């Protein structure tokens, strides 16, 4: 039974989505329960999957779709490969999906009205796509699944207001370019190797000594470009801030923590497993340095852009751009600590972004204001939400014992080992900028002027303390926030275990 866990993880939300569609409009509660149960099953089995991987001797599970076995050394069918990294990412995806579904309950009725069943269906299909991406061991199957996640997210984002539709359109253009570059890169690999299985491609590249070929280099560049567009690495990030900012809140609180992170996972997968660390890092002297500098620019630019925003969600989305820089840089430091930091940051960033987006959504919903002024005096008005926001923010700044601190720890130690001081400086700089950003908010929330009197401290606060649009925050929103806070803390406190698991999954450098 254990070997079929990956299928259960994928099929539960798939059937959940179909069921939600069949239930149709008018049965919102039933749709919610369907989604909840399906994702609950999926999350449960994802956790079981981690145990199964731990229990297995090789540290990875392989699952052959259709029961097709290899023929003379090559896989003819599609294979799933679940190592520790994949199992953990899948668990993160399904758990975030599950918790976000609880959060969505009251939110989507207001935002989606009659399309609630479509929201649940698309959301679950998005989770199917993300889980599939993480587990597949077939380069082309990866493309199909990337497109599944893209299409669902285009549709989900476009369900927002008219600006959401426009940003979704831009996302389609950028996303299609990205996915097509990836597809083209896979085509180049196929034309040179004659196989699509990730392990087999690496094997052929190695045995056929194809590493020096121009087409392989260009395939690598194309795939990387495609993945970077999808993960919004600066300066290819243009689509992300608007898309996540104007999307319905239940959508952005799910996509913001996961989409870019899963694409980072894909990048690691391509680097370490599809091409092999030997190839990527050995000839990497040319591009390795270049990419680290790109990531430094991403970190610095993302931080600055975030600093300049007065819209809560926009600010958070630019922080995501900066965080993507962390992970890309860490992956190219060519040492264990940097790579571990990059992998660990997938989880820690997912946890803290989730936490921040949930809190921000609650604040926006309750105050009806999407600018930073919404936070005025909130420590008194919404203490629980603000505690959640604070924990997420402290993690972004990187204070112990939150997970953000530990990912910085590993990334910085990787930077020090590699002797890449500019990267270390960029990380510290981003921490400081985050501190400024969030303490600006804390100051508002802590002292904020509730009386509506203009204050020379905050001259733009003349109309501060907006009237609350919601009497009280429902439990179905506070519980997810609480769970996200726990995730931020637990991922932080158990970083050692997590990193040791991740290191076991890492191929030798």
């Amino acid at each position: 039974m254990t070997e079929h866990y990956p299928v259960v993880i994928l099929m539960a939300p798939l059937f959940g989505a179909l069921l939600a569609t069949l239930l149709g409009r008018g049965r919102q509660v039933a749709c919610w329960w369907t989604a909840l149960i399906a994702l609950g099953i999926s999350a449960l089995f994802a956790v079981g999957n981690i145990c199964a991987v731990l229990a297995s001797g090789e540290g990875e599970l392989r699952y052959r779709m259709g029961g097709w076995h290899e023929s003379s050394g090559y896989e003819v069918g599609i294979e799933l490969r679940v190592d520790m990294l994949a199992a953990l990412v899948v668990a993160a995806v399904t758990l975030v999906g599950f918790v976000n579904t609880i959060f969505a309950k009251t939110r989507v009725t207001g935002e989606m009205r009659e399309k609630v069943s479509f929201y649940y269906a698309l959301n679950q299909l998005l989770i199917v796509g993300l889980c599939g991406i993480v587990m597949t061991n077939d380069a082309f199957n990866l493309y199909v699944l990337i497109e599944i996640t893209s299409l669902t997210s285009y549709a989900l984002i476009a369900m927002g207001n008219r600006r959401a539709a426009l940003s979704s359109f831009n996302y389609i253009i950028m996303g299609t370019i990205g996915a097509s570059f990836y597809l083209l890169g896979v085509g180049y690999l196929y034309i040179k190797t004659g196989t699509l299985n990730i392990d087999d491609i690496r094997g052929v590249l190695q045995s056929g000594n194809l590493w020096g070929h121009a087409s392989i280099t260009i395939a690598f560049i194309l795939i990387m470009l495609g993945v970077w567009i999808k993960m919004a690495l600066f300066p290819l990030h243009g689509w992300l801030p608007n898309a996540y900012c104007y999307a319905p809140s239940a959508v952005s609180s799910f996509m913001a923590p996961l989409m870019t992170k899963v694409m980072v996972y894909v990048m690691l997968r391509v680097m370490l497993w599809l091409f092999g660390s030997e190839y990527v890092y050995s000839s990497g002297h040319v591009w390795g340095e270049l990419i680290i500098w790109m990531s430094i620019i991403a970190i610095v630019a993302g931080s600055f852009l975030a600093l300049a925003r007065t819209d809560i969600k926009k600010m958070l989305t630019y922080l995501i751009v900066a965080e993507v820089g962390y992970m890309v840089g860490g992956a190219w430091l060519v040492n264990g600590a940097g790579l571990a930091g990059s992998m660990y940051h997938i989880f820690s960033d997912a946890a803290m972004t989730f936490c921040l987006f949930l809190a921000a959504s609650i604040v926006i919903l309750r105050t009806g204001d999407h600018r930073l002024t919404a936070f005025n005096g909130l420590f008194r008005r919404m203490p629980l939400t603000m505690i959640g926001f604070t924990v997420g923010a402290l993690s972004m700044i990187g204070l112990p014992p939150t997970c953000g601190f530990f990912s910085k720890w590993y990334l910085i130690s990787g930077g020090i080992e590699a002797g890449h001081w500019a990267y270390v400086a960029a990380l510290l700089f981003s921490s400081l900028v985050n501190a400024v950003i969030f303490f600006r908010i804390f100051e508002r929330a802590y002292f904020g002027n509730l009386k509506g009197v203009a204050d020379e401290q905050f001259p733009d606060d003349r109309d501060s303390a907006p009237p609350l649009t919601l009497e009280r925050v429902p439990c179905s929103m506070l519980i997810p926030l609480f769970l996200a806070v726990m995730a931020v803390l637990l991922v932080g406190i158990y970083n050692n275990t997590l990193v040791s698991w991740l290191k076991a999954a890492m191929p030798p450098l």
Partner: protein
Amino acid sequence: MKFFGFIAVVVVGTLLLVATGDFPGWGNPHSPASEGQVSGFYIEQTVNVTKVPNMVTAVLADFRGYDTMFETVVIFIAGIGIIAVLRTFGDTAGKASDYPEPDEGSDIIVRSTCHLMVPLIQLFALYVVAHGHHSPGGGFQGGVMLGASYILLALACGLPVAKRRMGERKAIVLAATGIIIYAGWGVACLFFGGNFLDYASLDPVLPGDKEMARSHSMLVVEIGVAFTVTAIMFAIYSNLATRGRLEKGL
């Protein structure tokens, strides 16, 4: 923007052209893709292990059946995505006049031709679905044709006529059913002790041996694909053509 676009195009184009220099010649039978183990297996062994003479169908529905299932899901997503984005329920009365009142199939020639054509198209579509094992064809191709037959109906006789035969609710149910058939067939394999989509394990309940079980199962999943494609094609058309109001067609 134009300048930036030009630079991007030049850079990417140069990269791509450089790479072509490295490729095996066009149509070279000894290129890795053509001579590789994987394609060799498909060409030589397909008929042995699945008894399906059309290798494309076998690769599509069996060797890479997992891909194809998600492909169907992609279609499904496009369909419900378009409905989710575009469909306006209820209050549309004020906007209905945006569109000129279409001439709803008043032309008797068009209408009669259409009535004559639709059954033929549908019949041929069913043939394409069913005969995918032996000739070019399969669920996608047949499904598109089936969908096209409904679209033709809508074009010629107006959307309400087509909607009577394929209403929105019906289309969604049909689309979902298609995937349920496909994925459900895969899950069924689990209960017979095989891996997901391992059709051979269904041989106790299907006529013939293990290889025939694969062949039969492919037909089943192709039918599932056809369901989904048919319904979604029509749903896409009807939503795009009416801006999601599903009242009047073009």
